């Protein structure tokens, strides 16, 4: 029994830590309807500024906190002014992508400045422990709780009773109306970003002290957990974010208690999916609250796609088709093989995200399902590789659609968050379902690609195979988009109420899109499995999902040719920047930001 008390206390302690990030995220979401993926990076920056202050300058704790808060707020203001404000009037998805790009840049800058080695960030508080239950808590626990709860309360009061707070809430409810009433919306945004960033920086400092450890990998994890907590509590709801964080901490702790440590994150993400399905606006959204997303499809704004003449496409296809005959190195071919595999994934995502408007952040899960199915079919049941890959595609289509179907009733950002969670769940199931997936050991000795008894092992044959598969999938998808199905998909994306009124069954069409998309992604995963010969739960990770979404947005949502162009660009750019060694991901992030800034509708435009 006493153990349960300990699990509860531990859950609250961790929830406390999550709350610091979640509050900042909630504040920004409340005002700009934006999930700020750069919040974890500000947290990282705060931790390292704190390290400089504590270890190099020996500042006392109150001064350290002030220094970190001011510096992080400055970073926040810079992000708002130069990263996000120029995107105000562009598609709603552009700022989301911009925050992803900003987080790349910030993380890389910290890594280049401080080296990727973890550092100790000593706590400046006296080391006394208070006995509670079977464990102890220290002054830092209390300080973190204090900062979390106080900031949530202060924000709550500030939003409710101060003039700027009113302006912030008015902007959150209706930006245009607020502007008409004379609210300086930009100033409001600045204030919000400054406050949220200061909070993010201080939380990085405190959490770093708490674990006596800071490293550059902490940013993505902080963002992930913060987003889960925030959405559980009700996106944009500051006190809700605190309660959501505590709940998340408790669920994780009890999950560990009952099932063991390796199931911890599984419970975190299951909690998120359950909450989203039962209460799509979070646990603490009031009924009176305005819907968190606009009802019509402004999330993805229409734009005029670039028309590429048919002959140009034919010529391009022809050139890539005969490329292996030309004197190009195997390295170039291999890079293009990667591009074609990513292209298949992007085709899948551009269909579900672009054409029907379900922006998925968990698409790597479809790769993983296809890869594991194909690998196990060919290894365990000796199914010929060609058939196994098709089996992988079918499994991905079926399982992927079934997994994603609970999120069909969600809109906008919530779809992205739900799919992010589903992606994580798939990866954790792969890790834990050892009897089938062999857990962390992974599957090795997967037979190479073969077709009708001939092994495809030379880069030239793999290149041709993957290129043909991708072109066939692209042609099928082009055909699909031109049919009445494609028009129905776009109708649902642009205005789901009108589409429903017209008699379209949303769920059925969304399922159709996921079945087709799941197949393409599963085939891509299957080919990858046979190409790599070894896969484990880390092969298809969250970064892959984010990369796929970047490709799709870069190419133009819903745009088939754009997806392939985007894949070639995003596989090619980091390879081109190889010469820059450690700096290449930084350059990649900056290029991404510039693209979002100057061409938010994507290279080839939304279809």
């Amino acid at each position, binding site marked *: 029994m006493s*153990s349960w008390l*300990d*699990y509860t206390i*531990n859950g609250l*302690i*961790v929830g406390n*830590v999550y709350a610091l990030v979640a509050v900042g995220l909630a504040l920004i979401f409340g005002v700009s309807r934006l999930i700020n993926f750069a919040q974890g990076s500000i947290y990282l920056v705060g931790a390292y500024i704190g390290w400089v202050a504590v270890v190099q300058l020996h500042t006392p704790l109150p001064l350290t906190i002030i220094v970190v808060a001011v510096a992080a707020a400055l970073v926040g203001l810079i992000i708002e002014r130069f990263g996000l404000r120029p995107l105000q009037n562009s598609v709603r998805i552009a700022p989301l992508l911009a925050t992803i790009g900003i987080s790349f840049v910030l993380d890389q800058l910290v*890594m280049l400045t401080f*080296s*990727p*080695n*973890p550092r*100790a960030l000593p706590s400046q508080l006296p080391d006394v*422990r208070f*006995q509670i239950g*079977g*464990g*102890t808590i220290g002054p830092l626990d209390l300080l973190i709780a204090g900062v979390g709860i106080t900031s949530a309360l202060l924000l709550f009061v500030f939003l409710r009773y101060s003039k700027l707070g009113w302006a912030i809430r008015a902007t959150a409810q209706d930006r245009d109306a607020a502007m008409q009433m004379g609210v300086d919306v930009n100033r409001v945004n600045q204030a919000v970003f400054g406050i949220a960033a200061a909070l993010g920086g201080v939380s990085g400092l405190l959490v770093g002290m708490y*674990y*006596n*450890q800071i*490293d550059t990998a902490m940013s*993505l994890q902080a963002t992930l957990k913060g987003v889960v907590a925030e959405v559980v509590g009700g996106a944009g709801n500051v006190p809700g974010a605190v309660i959501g964080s505590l709940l998340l901490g408790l669920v994780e*702790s009890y999950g560990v*208690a009952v099932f*063991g*440590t*390796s199931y*911890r994150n599984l419970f975190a993400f299951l909690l998120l999916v359950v909450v989203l399905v039962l209460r799509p606006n979070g646990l603490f959204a009031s009924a009176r609250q305005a819907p968190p997303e606009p009802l019509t499809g402004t999330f993805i704004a229409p734009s005029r796609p670039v028309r590429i003449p048919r002959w140009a496409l034919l010529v391009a296809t022809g050139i890539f088709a005969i490329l292996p005959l030309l004197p190009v*190195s*195997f*390295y170039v071919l*291999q890079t293009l093989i*990667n591009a074609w*595999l*990513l292209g298949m994934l992007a085709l899948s995502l551009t269909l579900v995200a672009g054409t029907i408007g379900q922006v998925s952040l968990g698409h790597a899960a479809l790769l993983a399902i296809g890869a594991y199915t194909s690998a196990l079919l060919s290894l365990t049941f000796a199914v010929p590789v060609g058939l196994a890959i098709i089996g992988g595609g079918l499994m991905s289509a079926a399982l992927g659609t079934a997994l994603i179907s609970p999120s069909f009733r969600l809109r906008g950002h919530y779809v992205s968050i739900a799919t992010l969670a589903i992606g994580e769940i798939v990866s954790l199931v792969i*890790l834990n379902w050892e009897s089938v997936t062999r*857990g*962390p*050991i*992974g599957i*090795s*000795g997967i037979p*190479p690609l073969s077709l009708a008894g001939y092994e495809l*092992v030379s880069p030239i044959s793999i290149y041709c195979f993957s290129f043909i598969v991708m072109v066939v999938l692209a042609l099928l998808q082009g055909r699909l988009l031109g049919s009445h199905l494609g028009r129905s998909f776009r109708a649902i994306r642009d205005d789901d109420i009108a589409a429903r009124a017209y008699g379209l069954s949303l769920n059925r069409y969304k399922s159709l899109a996921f079945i087709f998309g799941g197949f393409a992604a599963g085939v891509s995963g299957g080919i*990858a499995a046979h*190409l*790599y*010969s070894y896969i*484990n739960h*880390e*092969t298809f990770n969250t*970064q892959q999902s984010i990369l796929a979404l970047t490709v799709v947005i870069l190419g133009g949502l819903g745009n088939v040719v754009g997806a392939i162009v985007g894949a070639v660009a995003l*596989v090619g750019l*980091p390879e081109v920047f*190889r010469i820059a*060694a*450690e700096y*290449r*991901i930084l350059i990649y992030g900056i290029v991404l930001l510039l693209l979002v800034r100057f061409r938010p509708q994507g290279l080839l435009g939304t279809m």
Partner: protein
Amino acid sequence: MSNIDRRTLVKGSLAAMMAGAAFSRAAFAQSSEPILLGVSGPLTGPNAQYGTQWKQGFDLALDEIQAAGGVNGRKLAYSFEDSQSDPRQSVAIAQKFVSDPRIVMELGDFSSPASMAASPIYQRGGLVQFGFTNSHPDFTKGGDFMWSTSVSQADEQPLLAAYAVKRLGLKKLAVLHLNTDWGRTSRDYFVKAAKEHGAEIAVTEGYIAEERDFRSTLVRVRDANPDGLILISYYSDGALIARQARQVGLKQVICAASSVYSPKFLELGGEAVEDVHVGTRYFPEDPRPEVQTFIAGFKKKYNGVEPDAFNAYAYDAMNMAAAVVKIGGADRRAIRDAFTKVKDVSSVIFGKATFDVESRRVKGAMNAELVVRKGQFALWDGKPT
């Protein structure tokens, strides 16, 4: 490229290498281009710290090799390509290295998915993939071009189990391990060996690499009532677990695998890692000349910083690469064959490293039983903690 009298050249020790290099310099003075090795590893991304440590180890070894006149009279150099430990990038790098005639062999990658995805390309391309941190039991099964000096966990874990059970007298153990292919394999070998020594395994808990909070896990550990905690961890997570164990009031003996052996473990763990026992392959006061050369050289080159386990792996790997290139010359196949011939290469981890041709790994890692005393790693004096 011909080899002059291989056997007289390969004596393994540094002294012999120097003599050999001086001898061959005369013979190969015409070739001024450095012999190039390809390295595929993480310089950015979540594992970037390990790539950085590799570089430190490589550079130190290269300084010594160059100072001794290079290999066969030519300089040895490496081209480090950042893979982010991502299989998509490691396969592209593999093709790049395979199609670059200057590259004579490859080292890396870091993680199993990235390394083993590239193996088929190296195998078909006929370029040795020398995975010096690849402990995955299937890594060298990728083909006869896959070689590894990674300490086999089948070797290492029984040593740790003997330390914990026989020397420290622990009878009931809680095992916390990274839930990766390495951690999982290690755990299985450890549990097997510990049981053979008569210990009981009270609980095993696998955690993912990003985990930072172990309080709830430690409640499970406490409820299993062990008399010792075994950490199959890297230094950053190992330090976190030790700190949180002490914070929640667990006072049991902690015994950790060699992968925590790093000055960072002491820095990150602080007082909490005092009295933590670590089974390692070498230790600072180790009288072996290769260890003393390595530690002194490392401290001199990197402003007094103590080297850690990953620095040592990389340093050994570069020396091994020099030794096989010395035998095999600049020919890829000859280098593959050289792995079967190379004998008693001086090594921090193995003392004298010789490959087992069957498994393509090196057996017989050195063993040192350390304990953290007054914030420093020290040889365990046999006193209970």
